[in-house]
């Protein structure tokens, strides 16, 4: 039986922050791990692999306050599999906003999945400011918690961890404005363009 399978639930897959969190996790895990992206659509193969491992780690972003639709699709598939062996489920959830607690609802959904389907629930790590943290001086905070999580999984523990950037909300707003403005600039889009009130080229008044 293998030890760990990592399932990336981000629609961005190989380009995702989730992928980067997974790389950091593997560094601290120090053992082999099978990896899949749910957007590959290789559901059968992934489900079969899940049964052969002791630990299952979902890594995904918060989407509209919940689990991304692409990952819900995979969870439905996994629910249909009637395997005898069920690995312990863990999750690293990252969200764009500063407060890691905004991930709690998605974490509870993973808990509900486990409860409904007889999977033991292990460790959950909620990361706030997850879009940017790894490229800031606060990357060490995410890494530290991921390290703690890996150690806790090895010990068979089960609790929730959280981390974020050590910034006040106002400082976060300033830093994120700079981050997004620079992203726009790279595409030749000004801050004013990004600030448009129009949706599909219209405002409500038109």
């Amino acid at each position, binding site marked *: 039986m293998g030890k760990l399978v990592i399932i990336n639930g981000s*629609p*961005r897959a190989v380009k995702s922050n989730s992928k980067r969190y997974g790389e950091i996790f593997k560094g601290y895990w120090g053992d082999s791990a099978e990896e899949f992206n749910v957007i590959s659509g290789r559901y059968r193969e992934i489900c079969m692999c899940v049964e052969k491992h002791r630990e299952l780690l979902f890594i995904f972003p918060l989407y509209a306050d919940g689990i*991304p639709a692409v990952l819900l699709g995979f969870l439905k598939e996994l629910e249909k599999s009637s395997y005898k062996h069920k690995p312990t489920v863990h999750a690293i959830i990252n969200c764009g906003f500063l407060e890691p607690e905004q991930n709690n609802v998605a974490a*509870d959904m993973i808990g509900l999945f486990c409860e409904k389907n007889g999977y033991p629930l292990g460790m959950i790590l909620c990361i706030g400011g997850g879009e940017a943290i790894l490229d800031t001086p606060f990357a060490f905070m995410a890494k530290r918690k991921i390290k703690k999580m890996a150690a806790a999984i090895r010990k068979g523990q089960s609790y929730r961890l959280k981390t974020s950037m050590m910034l006040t909300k106002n400082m976060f707003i300033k830093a994120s404005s700079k981050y997004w403005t620079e992203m726009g600039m790279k595409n030749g889009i000004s801050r004013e363009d990004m*600030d448009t009130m129009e949706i*599909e080229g219209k405002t409500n008044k038109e």
Partner: protein
Amino acid sequence: MKLLLSDRELPAELVKRGDYKYISLVQKKIHNCTGCFGCWVRTPGKCVIRDDATEIYPLIAQSEKLIYVSRIYLGSYDIPMKIMLERAIPVQKAFIRIHGGETHHVQRDVKEKEAVIIGYGNLSEKEKNLFENLVERNAKNMSFKRWRISFVEENEVDEAVIKELDLWEN
């Protein structure tokens, strides 16, 4: 504007009667969000995926009253409605503000709304609670000034929709 958005077809006689827009997601082709943020940093206010979602998120933005009809899965909107809500992020700006004591995105031209969510399926109390927590969080990102959730069994959906439409009319 009033909007009735449903993940299942509702009976024709029911949906033709009032001054509201009815959209069923059943016939719509809506791809998953790819997380590219093009709607913020490439073509602000427009999704780069030019499918049916581009007709729907402007209506969500314009609505002052809305009803979402969705199956519930794991305390979440089930996949069709969840995909649509994820594809609605062009109505927000990349920029962040403090709202309700937390960081949230600044909205574009989005009306504040009264939302009713008819969530259906065979649901445990735990699942209902979780969905309530989800909608409470959504309220901050989706400009709900008031919201109410009505949980029903699948065979009670039409009746629940009629009840809500009656409330709109009276």
